[in-house]
């Protein structure tokens, strides 16, 4: 880390290829796989063939175009090159892709809701592209439900001056396995807001990443997860600042309860030599509600230029604060209610960032349901 102008290369995530063969089958010893229980991937990392479907249903805003296209469509894979074995496998294996386009200067009047419903035990692969042409604005919801063994890649292509807000809900059934890459490519002065909510699934490994093709890009990546007994929920973020005067802010918060509830958060930020004037901050907070739960939280900030506006990170994992609970209980509030208030409070500042009130309510309702469990 630090200043090294002689060798201005990042050590983070340099590998990218469309070809599965370019990535060795992970053994679990690799840095990027060491936290993931490979046996629970049910072969997604070993090339298991597709034998099931995740049904994609899109409820689109009137200003938005939705197409289902074949593998040869020229718009696929333009913004993102797979960065690991499973991602490359998904790219090599999907049959149909969904392309959502918002035309130049169009402003979507309602959220476009993409519901992805898993229906079986076999493996399924998918690909989605959301493309905002210059000055367009849209809100897109990805709602994952049902039972699935699913690997996919999602490309968010945000044009000059465009604004894309995405909410991705991983509300899978208990046995689902989902490995996914979300990549956003921001053109000059583009705005990207991502809000990830991961609640369901046996294993979810979601890798949101951002890169910039011009100056002035602004990305906020927020995430909320609630890990129950036995669940493995992993979020791996990568923000690659390669252009000047861009901004990124990462805020992921999770609560864990139950035996072998496992959360992993990796926050990689690269500020390359060219990225002068970068302003970035990443935060991860974990609330361990019971014994037997574990949170791994690893921020990596790699700064290759001296000219940053701001760069920082913070990571905390801890239990509910006894002093908070005491204060509330000392006012007559029973322990269980006090606990819920504090947990809700922990997520509140995050959920407030969802600007669309209807979606905010929806996320709150799901968090509420988790708290009632």
């Amino acid at each position, binding site marked *: 880390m630090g200043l090294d102008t002689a060798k201005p290369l990042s050590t983070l995530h340099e590998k990218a290829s469309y070809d599965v063969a370019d990535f060795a089958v992970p053994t679990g010893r690799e840095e990027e796989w060491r936290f993931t229980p490979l046996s629970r991937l049910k072969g997604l990392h070993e090339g298991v063939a597709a034998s099931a479907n995740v049904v994609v249903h899109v409820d689109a805003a009137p200003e938005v175009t939705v197409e289902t296209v074949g593998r040869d469509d020229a718009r696929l894979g333009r913004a993102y090159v797979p960065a690991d074995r499973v991602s490359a496998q998904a790219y090599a294996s999907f049959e149909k892709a969904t392309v959502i386009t918002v035309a130049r200067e169009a402003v979507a009047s309602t959220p476009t809701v993409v519901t992805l419903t898993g229906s079986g035990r076999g493996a399924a692969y998918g690909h989605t592209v959301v493309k905002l042409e210059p000055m367009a604005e849209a809100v897109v919801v990805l709602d994952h439900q049902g039972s699935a063994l699913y690997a996919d890649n999602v490309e968010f292509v945000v044009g000059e001056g465009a604004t894309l807000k995405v909410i991705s809900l991983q509300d899978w059934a208990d046995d689902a396995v989902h490995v996914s890459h979300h990549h956003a490519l921001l053109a000059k002065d583009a705005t990207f807001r991502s809000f990830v909510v991961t609640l369901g699934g046996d294993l979810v490994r979601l890798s949101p990443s951002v890169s910039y093709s011009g100056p002035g890009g602004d990305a906020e990546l927020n995430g909320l997860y609630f890990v129950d007994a036995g669940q493995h929920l992993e979020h791996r973020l990568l923000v690659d600042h390669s252009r000047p005067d861009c901004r990124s802010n990462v805020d992921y918060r999770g609560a864990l309860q139950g035996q072998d509830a496992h959360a992993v958060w990796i926050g990689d930020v690269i500020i390359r030599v060219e990225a002068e004037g970068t302003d970035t901050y990443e935060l991860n907070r974990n609330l361990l509600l019971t014994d037997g739960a574990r949170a791994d939280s690893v921020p990596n900030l790699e700064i290759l230029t001296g000219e940053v506006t701001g760069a920082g990170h913070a990571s905390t994992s801890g239990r509910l604060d006894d002093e908070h609970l005491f*204060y509330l*209980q000392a006012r*007559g*509030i029973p322990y269980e209610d006090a606990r819920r208030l504090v947990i*809700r*409070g922990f997520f*509140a500042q995050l959920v407030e960032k969802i600007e669309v009130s209807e979606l905010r309510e929806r996320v709150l309702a799901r968090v509420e349901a988790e708290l009632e469990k």
Partner: protein
Amino acid sequence: MSDTSRVPSGSTLEIRDLHVNVADKEILRGVNLTVRAGETHAIMGPNGSGKSTLAYAIAGHPKYTVTGGQVLLDGVDLLELTVDERARAGLFLAMQYPVEVPGVSVSNFLRTAVTSVRGEAPKLRQFAKDLKSGMDALSIDAAFAQRNVNEGFSGGEKKRHEILQLELLKPKIAVLDETDSGLDVDALRVVSEGINRFRSNGETGVLLITHYTRILRYVKPDFVHVFSAGRIVEQGGPELAERLENEGYEAYTKASA
């Protein structure tokens, strides 16, 4: 919990030979004190003598281990109850250092607390009215209702927020731990008026911990106790407070050492 022993004229808090450890160190070494309805007791004593320990132990803070003695509220042993049960039984502690609770708004907190203490949710309209008049009386800006509990409040704002809770929750016995510290003259007057409203019906008891006689000019005590090295070493009337402020605690700290 039974309320049957409650006498209509008000409540009584009895502290009998209370011994308390903090981190395996004995801090309270046999405290005896009875607070009856309509009475205000001031406790004064040097830093570190155990005044807050007494307050927290009565309220049930997990850090404080009671190793002996009893605390009875109308005959019910509070030490057998959880923290929230004690509060619902009618005990209130205004803290020396009120806790910030991130993400929990004052209005949500107060509504939840009032609901818990009363056993039913207050009518929304009535609650909004009570809250507003309570805040007005304590010169708390209406915007505080939307802020997070104690987060970023100044020292004085935190203390006023404690007294707001006192007035909304209407306990039988209030323990006020240095509610006067950090208040300017105006805030002290406003807070004192709140305490006086609370005790005006004559059915509530107040245990007021302080270092200064300043607040005692507004909130007149019936009894003054000198606390030193974990126990009460002297008792008297309001005149004792004046003497303490002039002469300090030296006489007592020497005596108990």
